[in-house]
């Protein structure tokens, strides 16, 4: 991270401000012109974002407060449902279908299960990927023959589109597939409750670990070699060098990697959708929130809009917690680095 450049920019600004108070007025009018120019330059982007992001998001929220069209029993035709209040939200959160609770076999009954599944996938994949990614990054950071080849080949899984990854693993995990033959097992990888979940975790770890590894590698490479030399001189063994030099210094990069992966994993759709179709176990053991949204779209837009708004809020909450608590660590670490307390 370019802490120093940030500081020097501040210093420059301060110096300028101190050095040339008379020019301030002139400078500020110039700034005004610049501001207007800046506005003009930014306007197209803002308008574009408002159209392609702002409008749909607002529209989805408005839709989520309307009822899905119901059937007019007399004509057999759909009629628009009118205002729904919060009923689309209570449908999901309280699992209410009409006046009764949603029976098994309705999407409403699957909401909390999918929340659990989504968070389980997120926790499991991120933890495994960070541990493996850290190890891979440490290996790639060493100087040895064939390092460039290793770095390139590690990227291969990440370069393959997820849909293709999912299909590849679908064949590997077929009953007559390679996985069962190599392991001499008869596991129903796409049918069992935990087997199907592990199948997805394995495929996701295979695909995404390189991404984490590269982000961590980038963090490792900015650690100056002399800090290690100093540690060695002080008599630190390799474990101490790892926990007391490498880990604290790589933490900012690590946190960014974890944040990105977490948010990505929370919206996971393509891998389970193709690998297991959201099935397995009880029939929805691998249904994530995004899969549930897509399923619901065919059954009613307004209810699906409420579900995607809920998903949005959940992910936003997680992101907020991350930035609020772990983000603070990033800042602290760098401040401490600056002060030279580590």
């Amino acid at each position: 991270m370019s802490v120093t450049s940030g500081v020097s920019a501040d210093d420059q600004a301060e110096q300028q401000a101190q050095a040339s108070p008379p020019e301030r007025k002139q400078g500020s009018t110039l700034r005004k012109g610049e501001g207007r120019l800046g506005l003009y330059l930014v306007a197209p982007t803002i308008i574009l974002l408002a159209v392609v992001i702002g409008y749909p998001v607002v529209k989805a929220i408005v839709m989520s407060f309307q009822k899905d069209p119901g059937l007019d029993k007399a004509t057999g035709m759909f009629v628009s449902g009118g205002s729904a209040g919060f009923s689309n939200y209570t449908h999901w959160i309280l699992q209410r279908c009409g006046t009764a609770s949603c029976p098994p076999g309705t999407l409403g009954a699957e909401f909390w299960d999918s929340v659990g599944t989504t968070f389980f996938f997120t926790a499991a994949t991120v933890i495994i990927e960070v541990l493996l990614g850290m190890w891979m990054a440490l290996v790639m950071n060493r100087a040895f023959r064939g390092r460039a080849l290793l770095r390139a080949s590690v990227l291969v899984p990440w370069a393959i589109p997820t849909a293709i990854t999912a299909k590849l693993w679908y064949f590997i995990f077929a009953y007559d597939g390679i996985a069962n033959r190599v392991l001499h097992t008869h596991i129903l990888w796409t049918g069992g409750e935990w087997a199907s979940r592990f199948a997805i975790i394995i495929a996701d770890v295979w695909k995404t670990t390189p991404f984490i590894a590269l982000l961590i590698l980038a963090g490792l490479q900015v650690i100056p070699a002399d800090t290690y030399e100093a540690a060695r001189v002080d008599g630190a063994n390799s474990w101490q060098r790892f926990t007391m030099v490498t880990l604290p210094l790589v933490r900012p990069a690590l946190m960014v990697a974890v944040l990105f992966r977490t948010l990505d994993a929370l919206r996971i759709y393509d891998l389970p959708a193709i690998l297991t179709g959201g099935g397995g176990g009880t029939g929805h053991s691998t249904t994530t929130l995004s899969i549930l949204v897509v399923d619901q779209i065919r059954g009613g837009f307004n209810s699906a809009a409420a579900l995607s708004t809920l998903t949005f809020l959940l992910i936003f909450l997680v992101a907020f917690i991350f930035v609020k608590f772990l983000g603070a660590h990033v800042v602290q670490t760098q401040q401490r680095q600056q002060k030279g307390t580590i």
Partner: protein
Amino acid sequence: MIRRTRGFSVAMASLGAGVLLIGMGGCSSGGGSNTAGQNTNARGPITYVQGKDNNNVIRPLIDQWNASHPNEKVTFKEQSDQADQQHDDLVQHFQAKDPNYDVVDVDVVWTAEFAAKGWLQPLTGQFALDTSALLPTTVKTGTYNNTLYAAPQASDGGLLYYRKDLVPTPPKTWDEMMADCSIAKSHNMDCYAGQFAKYEGLTVNAAEAINTAGGEIVKSDGRTPNVDTPEANKGLSMLVDAYKNGNIPQQAITYQEEQGRQSFESGKLLFMRNWPYVYSLATTDGSSVVKDKFGIAPLPGLDASKPGASSLGGHNAAISQYSAHKATAFDFVKFLESADTQKTFATKASLAPVIASLYDDPTLIQTLPYLPTLKTSIINAVPRPVTPFYPAVTEAIETNAYAAIKGDKTVDQALKDMQAAIKAAGS
């Protein structure tokens, strides 16, 4: 820089989450103005919309039509080969009231939804279609609320594939088939498989079992669920018991059409329920070891007097409410229904005809030897529920049948839940 990273992360987070919402924004609910009486006599160029034309059969047919109708030319709009994508594409164009989607090809299970949304021109009055020559079960798939909304265009029914080298006479009843499973055991093969993975195929197979045993999914009004009955219980129990005792192998719970076909073609499966498309593949595939060792029969019934009740596949042709040239569109639908066109579909694309007499046509039987068996299957078939809430209904059937077959719940409980879930689907 630190600040920026943090702000950037939040922005990325909200952006990522927002993508989910964006998918929703473009959609708005249907319903609305009645356009049934508009453009009914108008003639002019039209567009025909259909999923991917794998066998290149549509374009030559349209060329043929265009040659004789220079002022009412048909343009072919080809969709993807994925059913879900075809469905969503049609929904979007109907919502936009696109006048350029004149004649559309709809899967049998979407017909009710599109009709209830008011998107399809009812085939009544001047659009009345003569359905007397058609197989009655196929007409049912295009009928919603006692009104025909879509003309049957291609049908499909389930067949029982069996190893004639091991089982000389195919079983007529489910019990006979289960008894024949001892043959499979002695040859170290699996006995029976259908489509039991949790997807649309399971709805097809579960509905077949329930209908064969004399039960029904919904009452004749198409809305009221009726699966909590002794007959339905008997039907679903056939599958559940066979899975429990191993006559249906444990991996069949992951089978879609293709996995079953591969197992059958590699000689590992004695009986298989599948669609007619398997016939030519199993006879010609290089990897097939059963090329001249298999036969086909109607699905086994409850007793020998009546074969099993297949579910119906296939497509119907419908006229959009928003079409600008409905008179031409109707003529084109009749052209698709004509015996000549149906024959072309059958010979060039192996599509099962909807005209009853074609199943007895000797030249057709020569190219498609399974036709007489398929006719029995389709005549005895029961369409899947014709309901505007089909996605929710099929989810209710799939989920609960899957849980019952796996033994996660009792058949009684599964049917009670299925009943409640189908009911909730329509509320």
